[in-house]
């Protein structure tokens, strides 16, 4: 009896220690997440002003801020909010599959055995550094015809390959042009795929070699091996990569600066908060859709 009570209290102590360990996060969660979240929602339903003694005054006005946001307010670049959100979401929908597929592709290449692999890997993960916002922004050239990032792919436009394709093979420019635009934006794509490539590479390396051996024994072609062994094995990690990419893309969106400018440059804290709330809902919606779709695919592949 004595013994068991001692054991129980030991376990309880263990749990208490565990809670002490997570307590910094819990405090942070309340102070930097829950309270700001509640405040954001509260501000968005009020007209917020500055009081006589420097404090803040609140005047309840229901969903007026939200109505204003979509009816009358414009962004810093003079577009409507609806358009801002449509643009952000479309860019995201286009970039997401490109980034995910591209990072997998790069990981597959880096996973091959060849001489100088160490150097190639060194370069392949460089986007983790080069992809930082500041660096990307600063590398952008302000002058010149394109006005964008000099990525070297504009060499393609005047290159022998292009001239050969157009002159000798008579490939119409109409076909070539969209391809060229994609190629020109390839650095954009690479710069956003650093962490994802890293995650995919580790996933590829952790696939047991015996699986590939079995596939070889059974006479599977490389194509079949890829679709029946590699893809199912990395399906779980794809879930993580997709979620990570969505979050990362939303982090880079310009909506936050808009909210900041509403609140502190135009003095409309209520409207800025309303924008933040809509933004948050947007992110959650996209994530939920992505998670639902992916879950189906993952389950299908696990069978």
């Amino acid at each position, binding site marked *: 009896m004595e013994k068991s009570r001692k054991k129980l209290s030991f376990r309880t102590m263990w749990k208490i220690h565990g809670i002490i*360990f997570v307590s910094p996060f819990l405090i942070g969660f309340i102070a930097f997440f829950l309270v700001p979240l509640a405040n954001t929602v509260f501000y968005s339903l009020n007209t917020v002003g500055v009081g006589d003694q420097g404090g803040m005054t609140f005047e309840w006005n229901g969903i007026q801020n939200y109505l204003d946001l979509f009816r009358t307010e414009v962004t810093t670049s003079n577009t409507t909010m609806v358009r801002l959100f449509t643009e952000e979401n479309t860019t995201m929908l286009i970039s997401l599959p490109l980034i995910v597929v591209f990072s997998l592709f790069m990981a597959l290449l880096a996973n091959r055995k060849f001489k100088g692999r160490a150097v190639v890997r060194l370069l*392949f993960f460089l986007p983790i550094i080069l992809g930082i916002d500041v660096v990307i922004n600063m590398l952008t050239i302000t002058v010149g015809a394109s006005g964008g990032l000099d990525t070297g792919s504009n060499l393609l436009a005047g290159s022998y390959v292009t001239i050969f394709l157009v002159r000798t093979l008579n490939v119409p420019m109409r076909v070539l042009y969209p391809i060229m635009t994609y190629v020109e934006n390839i650095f954009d794509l690479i710069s956003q795929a650093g962490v994802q490539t890293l995650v995919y590479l580790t996933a590829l390396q952790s696939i047991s070699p015996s699986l590939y051996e079995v596939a070889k024994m059974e006479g599977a072609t490389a194509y079949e091996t890829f679709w029946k062994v590699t893809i199912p094995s990395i399906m779980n990690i794809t879930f993580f990569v997709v979620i990570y990419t969505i979050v990362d893309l939303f982090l880079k969106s310009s909506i936050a600066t808009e909210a900041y400018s509403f609140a502190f440059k135009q003095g409309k804290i209520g409207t800025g908060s309303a924008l933040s709330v809509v933004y948050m809902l947007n992110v*959650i919606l996209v994530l939920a859709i992505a998670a639902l779709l992916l879950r189906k695919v993952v389950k299908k592949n696990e069978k």
Partner: protein
Amino acid sequence: MKNKRKQKYSEVDASLAIYLFQKKSKKTMVNFFSLVLILGLCFTIVYPILSLVPVIFSSIEDLGNPNVIWIPEEFSTVSFKAAVRLVMPQGIMTMVWSVLYAVGIMILQVFFSAMVGYSLARVKFWGRGIVFGMVILVFLIPRQSLLLAQYIDFVHFNPLGIMKLFTAAGEVNLINNPVVLVMLAIFGFGVNQSLFIFLFSQFFKNIPKELEEASLIDGCGFYRTYFKIMLPNAVPIISTVGILSFVWNYGDTYYTNYFNPDGSYLSTLLSSTFVTANKEYILRALTTWYEVPVATDLAFDAVKQAAVLIFLVPLLIVYLIGQRKLVENMENSGLVG
């Protein structure tokens, strides 16, 4: 009989040879194509950096000279000097302070994320699932959406009303006070910290239970088990998170810009100096400081890119040291499989 068999063999040999040849040529083709792809990708990644070199090292007059593509006619470091003068008000110390800031925040982030991650993975306390859900939720909700309220909270900082005891106003304005950044890192809300917590918890889940039990039998308590047994075993994930944390904190313009706008972090200085609105000022500075007769937009770009290169130096050093371990470590991180 014997002859026939021999003939058969040679037939088999021939078909085998053809088969092997086909296989080999196919393999060579695949290898060749992947090599081309790899080289192409490497080129695309490195080119933006490489193409900076001639721009930065050529003299201001040489910029835009169509004869200069890769090798500048006159070697000059004016762009570099100008960049240093513009973005590093305290000279090299600006960079040292930025690096120290990133290292400090990194240590805090690693220390506190590891604790939370360990507890989430190994201790079955009450409400563990809920706390884990909170970590995921914080990761999913973009931090900017809460920026406004957080900012206002920090302007009127008064947790639980205790500030009344210390100041007359009953609140403290913490904006522009680096304490905010330290606080965020301690309480798990630094740059991408929920991701770090998640990585740590995935790692600690895979550590064999026997390790913990052995240390218990040897009479270690909770804290000694953690600090003497668990943390030393977590070196791979600590270095992975450490590298990522350093890179992201050093390059962070978000927290530093909003919560400490007057601080001299290289990243914020960089992004605030080289805005298009400042172009005229920078060009005028160039002409007066270095007696350059004409400075065009190209000069502005050259200085800007020299500054980026300076900014990248610490990152590249850390990356070169840590890169090799990065893949190995991620494999042990428990994220996969």
